[in-house]
C-alpha cells in the first residue's frame, strides 16, 4: 500500500483536482513547477535557513515527565507551540511564500478559521513585503478577535466571508473565488492539506519537517528513530500529516488522528468527519466530508475554530479507509480537561486544537515501555477567553 500521492494527485480513492476551468491554468502551473522548485538546492537552503533563524526550529521534542507518570508511559511532546507565531502553520507559510516568490507572484491570498494560518500568512507576507488578503468567516472574525488584530498589525487586509455559514469553509470558497478573478498575479496560500492537487502534497511536504526532526530527536533521546504511537489532532490535517509523514511506511508506528467530536458525535454539533462523513467533493478534492444526502455540505461544530472544518485532507481519508490510521474523537469537554491537565502537570498551555490530541491519552491503553509522541500543534494564548470561561465554572 502506498501513502504517497500518485501522478494524478490521488491517495488511493481520494484527492484529485475537481476545479472549474477558471482555475485550471493556475492549478496546472503550480502542479507543473512545485516539485522542481521546492526540491532545488537553492530553495531548500533558503527554506531551512528561515525555519532555523526566523521560525526557531528545530522545535524541542520534550519528554513530559509528569504526564508520563500520570499515564504510566513515555510521553513526548513535539513542541510546535514554540514556533514563531505559536503554531505549526508557519512551517507551511514560509515554504509557500518562497514558492510564490519563485513563481513571480505578487499578491497573496489565504483563508483562515481560527486565524492561526491567517497570522502565519500575514507574517511571512510582512517579511517578504507582499500584499496579503486573508478571507475569514464573519462569525470567526467575531470569535477570534486577537488574531484579527494581529493580522491587521502585520499589514494584512482581513476580508469577511459573508456567504453560507460564514466560517472556514466559506472563507475557503471566497479565497478560491478571489483566485478565479485574479489568476495572473495572485498566489493562493492554502493553510492545510486540503484543496485540489497539488496542495495536499505541497502542504504535507512543508509540514513534514515535524516528523523529520522527530526521527533524529527520538534516535538521540531514546536510541530508536521511531515511536510506537504518534497522536495529532485533525482539522484539515496539516499538523497530523507533518507528524506522520516520515512514518507512513513504517507499520510499527501507530498513527492516531483525533477529530473534534464537539458536543458529542451524534449531538448534531460535531466536526467528526470520519464518523459522520461520506465520500464527496469539497474545495476541489475528493475526500471524506460532512454532507447531507443531497450533497450539500453541512456545517461542522467544534469549540476550537481550527478543527471546525467539514472535511479532512485526502491523505487522511486514505489513511482512514485503508486502516493505516487510527481515528478517534475528543469532545469539547474532553479537550478542555486535557488542556487544564497539561497546564497543571507540565506548565504548558496548549491550543484548544492540540488539546484534542492530548485528550486521546485518556482513551488509549498505553504500555509502560511504549514511546508516545503527541504533536503539540500550537500554544493556547489565542484560546484564553474560552479557557477563562471554563476556569470560573
Amino acid at each position, binding site marked *: 500500500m502506498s501513502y504517497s500521492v500518485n501522478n494524478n494527485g490521488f491517495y488511493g480513492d481520494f484527492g484529485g483536482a475537481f476545479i*472549474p*476551468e*477558471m482555475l485550471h491554468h493556475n492549478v496546472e502551473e503550480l502542479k507543473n513547477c512545485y516539485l522542481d522548485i521546492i526540491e532545488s538546492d537553492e530553495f531548500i537552503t533558503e527554506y531551512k535557513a528561515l525555519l532555523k533563524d526566523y521560525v526557531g526550529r528545530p522545535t524541542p521534542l520534550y519528554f513530559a515527565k509528569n504526564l508520563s507518570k500520570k499515564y504510566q508511559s513515555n510521553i513526548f511532546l513535539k513542541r510546535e507551540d514554540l514556533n514563531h507565531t505559536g503554531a505549526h502553520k508557519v512551517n507551511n507559510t514560509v515554504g509557500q511564500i518562497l514558492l510564490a516568490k519563485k513563481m513571480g507572484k505578487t499578491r497573496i491570498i489565504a483563508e483562515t478559521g481560527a486565524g492561526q494560518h491567517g497570522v502565519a500568512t500575514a507574517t511571512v507576507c510582512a517579511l517578504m513585503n507582499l500584499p496579503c488578503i486573508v478571507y475569514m468567516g464573519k462569525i470567526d472574525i467575531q470569535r477570534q478577535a486577537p488574531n484579527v488584530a494581529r493580522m491587521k498589525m502585520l499589514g494584512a487586509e482581513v476580508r469577511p466571508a459573508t456567504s453560507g455559514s460564514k466560517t472556514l469553509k466559506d472563507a475557503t470558497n471566497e479565497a478560491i473565488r478571489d483566485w478565479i*478573478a485574479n489568476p495572473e498575479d495572485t498566489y493562493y496560500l492554502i493553510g492545510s492539506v486540503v484543496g485540489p492537487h497539488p496542495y495536499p502534497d505541497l502542504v504535507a511536504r512543508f509540514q513534514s519537517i515535524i516528523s523529520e526532526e522527530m526521527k533524529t530527536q527520538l534516535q538521540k533521546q531514546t536510541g530508536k528513530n521511531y515511536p510506537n504511537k504518534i497522536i495529532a489532532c485533525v482539522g484539515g490535517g496539516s499538523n497530523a500529516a507533518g507528524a506522520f509523514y516520515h512514518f507512513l511506511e513504517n507499520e510499527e508506528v501507530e498513527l492516531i488522528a483525533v477529530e473534534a467530536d464537539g458536543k458529542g458525535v451524534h449531538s448534531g454539533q460535531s466536526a467528526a468527519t470520519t464518523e459522520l462523513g461520506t*465520500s464527496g*467533493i469539497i474545495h476541489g478534492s475528493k475526500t471524506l466530508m460532512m454532507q447531507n*444526502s*443531497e*450533497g450539500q*455540505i453541512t456545517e461542522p461544530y467544534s469549540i476550537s475554530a481550527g478543527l471546525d472544518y467539514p472535511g479532512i485532507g485526502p491523505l487522511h481519508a486514505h489513511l482512514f479507509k485503508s486502516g493505516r490510521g487510527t481515528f478517534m474523537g475528543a469532545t469539547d469537554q474532553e479537550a478542555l480537561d486535557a488542556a487544564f491537565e497539561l497546564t497543571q502537570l507540565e506548565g504548558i498551555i496548549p491550543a484548544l486544537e492540540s488539546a484534542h490530541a492530548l485528550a486521546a491519552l485518556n482513551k488509549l491503553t498505553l504500555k509502560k515501555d511504549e514511546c508516545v509522541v503527541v504533536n503539540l500543534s500550537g500554544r493556547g494564548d489565542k484560546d484564553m477567553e474560552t479557557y477563562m470561561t471554563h476556569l470560573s465554572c
Partner: protein
Amino acid sequence: MNRIKETFQNKKDILNIYLTAGYPQLNDAVEIVQELAKQGVDMVEVGMPFSDPLADGPVIQKSSEIAIANGITVQQIFEQVQEIRKTVKDLPIFLMGYYNQLIQYGIADFLATAEKVGVDGLIIPDLPLATYQNEHKKLFEAHHIKMSFLITPQTNEQRISEIAQESSGFLYVVSSYAITGGKSSIEESQLAYFKKIEALQLDVPKLIGFGISDSETFNTACKYAEGAIIGSAFIKALTNEGDLKTKIDKFVQKIK
C-alpha cells in the same frame, strides 16, 4: 429529437437565461421557464442550488442559499422539469450544478432521470474534462445528455479545441476572469478574446456567459458567438417587488 441542435440551426442571437431552481419560491421554476418560453427565450439553464458554489458570484450564491432553505432537492428539480415539459416542448433545458450533487444522487440514476424528464444537457463546472472522458462520457451519450464545458481567457488553444470537441451541447465561453455576475460592461481586452475565439472557427456553437447583463452586453456578445447567457442580472430582476410574470416579461423584453 435534438432540441439543442435544432435551436442552433434555426435561431440566431440565442438568449439563454439562467435561473436558480427553488428561487424565489420552491416551485417557481415551473412558472418561470414557462413564461421565459412564451417570451421567446431560446434556451434555459436551471441551476441546481449547491451549498458551496465555487464558480458563482454573490447574487447566484444568495439565491442558492434561499432555495436550499426553501427545501429544494435534486428530485424536486427533476419533477419540476417534468412539469415544465408538459407545455414547453421545444426549449432546450440545461441543468447547471456541481459534481458532488451528481455523485451523491448517483451518476447513472441522475442521467437516466434527466433523460426521462426531458433534460437536454448539463453544465458541471467542476467536473474535469479528463474525468468526464474516462469515467462518464459513454453513459452521457447512452442517455442522450449533452455536455457543455467552459473555456476562459486563460485556456490555451490546444485545450480549447479539446474542450470544444467534448462540448456536445455548446461551448461555454466565460467572458473574463470572473465568477458569475462579475462585471457589468464588456472591455476591450474581452473583445480581443472573443475575436480570438471566433477566429478559431470551432465547429461547435458558442455561448458567451458571465457578466452579460443587459441588451448592450448581450448584443455585443452575439457579434462574436451564437448567443449569450444571462444569469445574475435575471436573478436580480426576480428579487424586485412585483409579480413573477411581469418581472420576467419586462426583463426579457428589454433584452430581445
